[in-house]
Every structure is written in C-alpha cells, then in structure tokens.
C-alpha cells in the first residue's frame, strides 16, 4: 500500500541559520480531568514545523491528533510544556490574544465544513476579515480572490445547502486562507467526502502549498490521503511514534486528469 518510502526518523530541530521554526512544541502534555480520572491525551509531544511544509498527521482514534491540532490552533492550551508559534510563546497568552492569533495566523478546515448556514459562500469567506476589521471593498476583493483560488469564483452567492460537500469544503478552505495565515490546520478534512472529492480537496491543498508556499497540517486516518502530503507524523497513545518524509508524494492534479470526468461534483446535493 505505502508507495512512498520511510526516509528517516528525523529530528526537525530549528536550524540556527534559518531562524526559529514556524512551530515548535516542547514536551507538550495535555491532561483532561474527568471527575476523579485523569485522561492523558498528550504525554510529551515535541515537534517542529517549518514554513512551507505539508504534513499529514496520522494515528489511531484517541491517539491525541485532535488534541494536538487544538493546541496548534490556539483553541486550547497545553497543561504542561511550551508552544512557540513564529518564535512567540503562545502557551502564556490570554483568551483575547489567542483569538487574535487564530484570526491572523491560523486557518481552520474542519471535517464537518462548519460554514455558517443561510450565509452565502462570499459572506462565509468574508467572516475572518470582519473580525480583523478589513474595509468593505478590500474584503470583497480578497474574498472573491480566495474563492477563485479554490475554483468557486462562480458560486460565491450560493448558500451552503446549495453546494456539494466538496464545494462546501472548498469554501471552508477559501475562508481559512483569506487572512493569509502562517498555517492551515485541517482536522480530517476529507472525512465526510467520497474518494474522488477527497482527491479534489487534496488537490486544492497541494496547490496552495506548492504555488503559494502555505504551510498545511492535516489529520487523516486514510493512508492514501496522507500520501498527498510531504511529511507524515504518526501518533500513538499521546506520543509521536513516527515522523518521516514522503519522498515522492502523489499528485492530486495528475490523478484527476487521468480520471474520467464525472459531473457529480458540479451538481447540487440538495
């Protein structure tokens, strides 16, 4: 099954010549208290991510993938350990400061798309800029640009329920990139999609990563999907079990070109 070879278990320590890594986790622990029981979701995770990387995070259910993504996304704080984003220690920041960082440095893509219902694609994409205080004209231009990038420039006035799952996820990707974040975090973005649509969505991620140098980390439990990334991190029981580069990632675009065209993605699901 695995076409790419395991290259090495590297230590991605910050290179002193290149400056700090984009993301550094140092011995991060996360413990949930459930009544009397302590649940150790993360038991000492150390991780470096550089600018421009495309990482697939894998691991069994309950291994700590989502917990890691929440911490990386500044939605949650480590119980112990440190988290540096762009050289800044974010483990000590206040709620509002974390909100500002999420707004300007992080883009989220979720398994369930999480678009605002009864809100057009355009308005959904505009939303992060509303909280940044971008002026109306610029907001519109940038939102349209982002929708063009994901190939939905012609559907900007559609409501989420008028779009297929793949299209909704592309709107969500447009929303995640519209504030030019340092990293896009995607927790099982293809979990609700069929295989062809999944390839399309992975194609969008690959394009963003290759053409725009956007750093991407995505969680998946499908090894096939992980093959579109350039590095894989495998979690087990709250620790990193494996961390390797994929030598020859699959290309979503080439695969899509070789597939016979199907119209289903162009049709509305409802």
């Amino acid at each position, binding site marked *: 099954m695995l076409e790419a070879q395991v290259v090495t278990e590297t230590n991605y320590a910050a290179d002193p010549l290149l400056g700090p890594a984009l993301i550094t986790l140092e011995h991060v622990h996360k413990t949930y208290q459930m009544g009397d029981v302590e649940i150790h979701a993360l038991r000492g995770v150390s991780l470096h991510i550089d600018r421009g990387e495309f990482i697939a995070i894998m691991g069994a259910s309950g291994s700590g993938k989502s917990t890691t993504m929440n911490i990386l*996304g500044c939605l949650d704080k480590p119980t112990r350990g440190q988290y540096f984003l762009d050289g800044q220690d974010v483990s000590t920041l206040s709620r*509002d400061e974390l909100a500002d960082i*999420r707004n300007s440095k992080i883009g989220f893509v979720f398994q369930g798309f999480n678009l605002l*219902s009864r809100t057009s694609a355009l308005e959904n994409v505009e939303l992060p800029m509303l909280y940044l205080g971008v002026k109306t004209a610029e907001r519109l231009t940038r939102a349209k640009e982002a929708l063009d990038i994901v190939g939905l420039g012609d559907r900007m006035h559609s409501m989420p329920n008028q779009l297929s799952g793949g299209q909704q996820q592309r709107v969500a990707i447009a929303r995640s990139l519209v504030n030019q974040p340092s990293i896009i975090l995607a927790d099982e973005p293809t979990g609700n999609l069929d295989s062809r649509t999944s390839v399309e969505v992975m194609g969008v991620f690959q394009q963003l990563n290759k053409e725009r140098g956007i750093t991407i980390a995505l969680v998946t439990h499908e090894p096939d999907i992980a093959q579109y990334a350039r590095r894989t991190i495998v979690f087990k029981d709250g620790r990193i079990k494996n961390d390797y580069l994929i030598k020859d990632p699959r290309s979503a675009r080439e695969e899509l070109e070789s597939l016979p065209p199907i119209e289903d993605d162009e049709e509305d699901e409802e």
Partner: protein
Amino acid sequence: MNLLLTFRIAIRALGRNKLRSGLTMLGIIIGVGAVIAMVGIGQGASASIQSQIANLGNNMLFVMSGSMNTGGMRGGAGTSQTLTPDDAAAVERECPAVRAVSPGVSANGQLVYGNQNWVASSRIQGTNEKFPDIRAWPIETGEFFTEGDVRTAARVCVVGKTIKDNLFTGTDPVGLTMRIRNLPFRVIGVLSTKGQNQYGQDQDDTVIVPYTTVQKKMLSITNISMMMISAISPAATFTAEKQITDLLRQRHKLGANQDNDFFVRNLTDVAEAADQSSKIMTNLLASIAGVSLLVGGIGIMNIMLVSVTERTREIGIRMAIGARSAAIRRQFLIESVTLSVVGGIFGIVFGVGASIIISNTLGWPTLVSPWSIFASVIFSVFVGVAFGYYPARKAAGLDPIEALRYE
C-alpha cells in the same frame, strides 16, 4: 473591531432567521403598543377632564339654598328660601378668597319668537353682569347686560347657541325681540358655544336675563336660589368654601348644633379629584401595559437564550476564526437591542394606530404624547440591553472547542 461591523454582523445574523426575529419582536411590539395606547387613553381622559374644568368657569363654587347632612339631602337643594341678594353681596364683600359673586335664580318657561316657539329643557337663568367672567363664558355677538340693567330689572336677555339655532333658525338675534313666559325681551347678545357639561346636558340651551328681572317680573320673589362664586385662584377654592360657610352661618344666625341651611359645592375640587383619579387611572393602565412590556423583554431573553444554544456551533466557528469574546457578546447584545428597538418602533405604529381606532370606534378621547413615544423607545433599548445581556454573556463565555463539537 468596531461597532459598525459588529452591528452589520448582528443584522446579518438576524436576517438569517426572519421568523424567529419577527416572533421575538412581537412581544415588544405588543408591549410598547399597549403602553402607548393605554397612556393615550389615560391622557385623553385627563385632557377631557381638564377641558371640562376650564369649561366650569373660573375657580367656581356654587352656594345653594337648602341643606345637606350625612343622611343625604334634606329638603333638596334650592327648595328652601334662605339665600338673599344681600348674602351674595356680603360674600363678595367679606370673603377675601372670593373674587366675584353672581346671585342666581332660574325659571322654566316657553320661549317664543314670531311663530316659532321653543321649550325643550331651556333654562331661564337670572344672574348679574359678572356671569361671563365667573363662568368663563364669553359673548360671541352683541353684548352682555350691565349692572344698570340688573339694577332696573331690564327686560333684556342673552341667548345660548342652541336657542339662536332653533328659535331664530340661525339668524343673528341681536336687536330682535322675543317673548319669555309671555313677556317681551330684547335680545342683546349671543353666548359662545359651551357644549355639553359632564352630565351630558346641553349648556347652550339657555337664556340669561338679569336676576332681578326673574325675581320681580317672573316669579315675584325676593330671595335667590343660589350664588355663583369665583375664587381668587384654584387653590383658594377650599379657603373660599370655608369663609363662605362661616359667613353665611353667621348671617343666618345658626347655632353651633344647627345644620347649614345652604350648601356649598366646590366644583374645582370635584373636578380636580376627577382629574387626579384619571391620572391615577393613567398610571395604572401604564403599569399594566408596562408589565406586558416586561413580559416582552423576558420573551426576548428567552428567545435569545434558545438562540445562543441553537447557534452554539456558529459561536464556535466565529471564535475559531478569531472573534474575541467581546465581539460575540456585542453581537448578541446588538441583536437583542435591535430586536427590541425595531419592535419598539413597530410598537409605536401599532400603539398610535390602536389609539386612533379606539377613539374612533369607542368615542374615547385619546392623546398620544411625544413623551410617551420617547419613553417607550428608551424603555425598549433598556429592555434589549437588560434582557440581552445574560444570553450575550453566556454566548461569549462558551469554550470554542466544545462549541465547535456541539451537535
């Protein structure tokens, strides 16, 4: 993030669920509408009582012959013959709180002009020349009779509007001669329109002649049946009542254990009490309507709370993409204030409309004051903030991860 943007976010969010927004507003619409209509009715009643007070005359009191005790009227007002013109003169001379006095005697009888005649409920009132001043009832055309006419018991008269319209079929009667109880009288003036009194009697169906004329030429009496008295101020009516009572008791030589053989009726007092009770009524109506506004406010809180729960995921999404707690709180607060203010504006329209319908169909006077409109707008903002605050705070306090996971 500025207020205008939050406002836009809130408006968009409200627009997304128009039915819910509309139902939420309904409570406020009814509440504000009820306050405006109720206060309108109350103030209308108050205003009509005020105008009746003005109609009564200048700080007026009546003194009637006869007596009244706790058991009710004995003999009946005006039946005994205890008041005299000298009493009236003495009251005017000796009571400091009294400004003007007119003796009064009245008679009934037929009025004839040419081949027209008019009985109806026409009252022939005998007064002196101070009548227009005391009753605050000016002449419209011609003039009122003079002190000289009173002294000489002249056969002159002043007629009310109803008599002009009926007996003289609308033509100006000044200078014409009519017959009252078969005696010829010269009409020298027409009174302005007074309308109905508070008992619904037509006050314009009257003819006024010098009281001396009634005494000497119609009834052959020397006493008077009443006095019309004007006090120096509305507040002085009470003092005047006391001074008149004391003076008349003294003049009538009544012992300490004897009842009055007259009675004083303070119209201003009665009217003011009526006005007071209409004001209490207004406040009562306004409080009841205020309760419905309160219920409307609780409705807003209720729906905002449901809305926060229903929109937990939306809140999670907003927080994930960078909304600060304060922005979420402001959004929900602005949503509830917008609902209550827009509801309030519709409520004003509804309330004014209801007032107009009430006054047209039920014939109640209503008066919608700008003040009650202003107050209800202020109150709706207050309701929006007060009842929106808790749900807004609840929304802002949500944990983004849990909110995102919410199904």
